[in-house]
């Protein structure tokens, strides 16, 4: 009786024998798997961001480099003291814009996996508001693509933060200036 393993081996060999250009077969299988296995992770959540899980999700044998960026709630902004931040989003568009940014990153760098997670709601000092994780074959591309994703997120992804200052007042953060206008 044939085992499954030997059956697969046999079929693979006979398939190869029917092809004129044998050397291309393994390459094409590899390429196809490669395309299918590339992950784009995008999420908007009220829960704590599981950045360890995200980091594991973007790691790959094909990537020699994996980096993780975390944005956290900072206490002082130009001398003014923050006690907490409140985040809100236009969730459907935020996800669509995140996917678009990852698509653009893939056009510029050889990205294996990429992930962007943004948290919403009331966040205390030190809590993580955003995580960007990316893997590429070499480290230079990971740093560049990661920087691109977080910089572009801050211009294009419709999420807003409201400062809760230590004097009890609140204030929406709405950047002004040319570099805050999204590309149309």
């Amino acid at each position, binding site marked *: 009786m044939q085992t499954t393993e030997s059956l697969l081996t046999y079929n693979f060999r006979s398939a190869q024998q029917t092809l004129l250009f044998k050397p291309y077969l393994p390459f094409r299988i590899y390429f196809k798997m490669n395309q299918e296995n590339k992950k784009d992770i995008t999420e908007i959540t009220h829960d704590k961001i599981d950045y360890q899980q995200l980091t594991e999700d973007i790691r790959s044998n094909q990537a020699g480099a994996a980096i993780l960026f975390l944005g956290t709630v900072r206490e002082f902004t130009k001398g003014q003291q923050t006690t907490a931040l409140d*985040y809100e989003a*236009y969730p459907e*568009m935020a996800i669509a814009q995140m996917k678009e940014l990852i698509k653009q990153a893939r056009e510029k760098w050889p990205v294996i996996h990429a992930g962007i997670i943004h948290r919403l709601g009331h966040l205390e000092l030190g809590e993580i508001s955003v995580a960007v994780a990316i893997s590429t074959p070499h480290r230079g591309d990971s740093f560049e693509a990661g920087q691109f994703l977080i910089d572009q997120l*801050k211009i294009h992804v*419709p999420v807003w933060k409201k400062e809760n200052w230590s004097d009890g007042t609140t204030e*929406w953060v*709405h950047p*002004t200036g040319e570099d805050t206008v999204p590309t*149309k």
Partner: protein
Amino acid sequence: MKQTVKLFAQAKDLAGSESIEIQTEEQTTVARFRELLSEQYPSLQAIVPHLLIAIDMNYVSDDFLINPESEIACFPPVSGG
């Protein structure tokens, strides 16, 4: 015709609602939409020039023609991260 407009962040607070109705005209461009918004919602007037307008979840320029079926959203420059 009447079109629903989603508002976020400071725009939502100033209008006192996360969704407003606006009377649009035939062939309304985004530039004309800004004028209509100022006229019909004076509470938003001060920030209208700075608002970003998203049509069907895409950023569009002022000469863009708004389809009556489209989803319109208005909000100040984003500040995520």
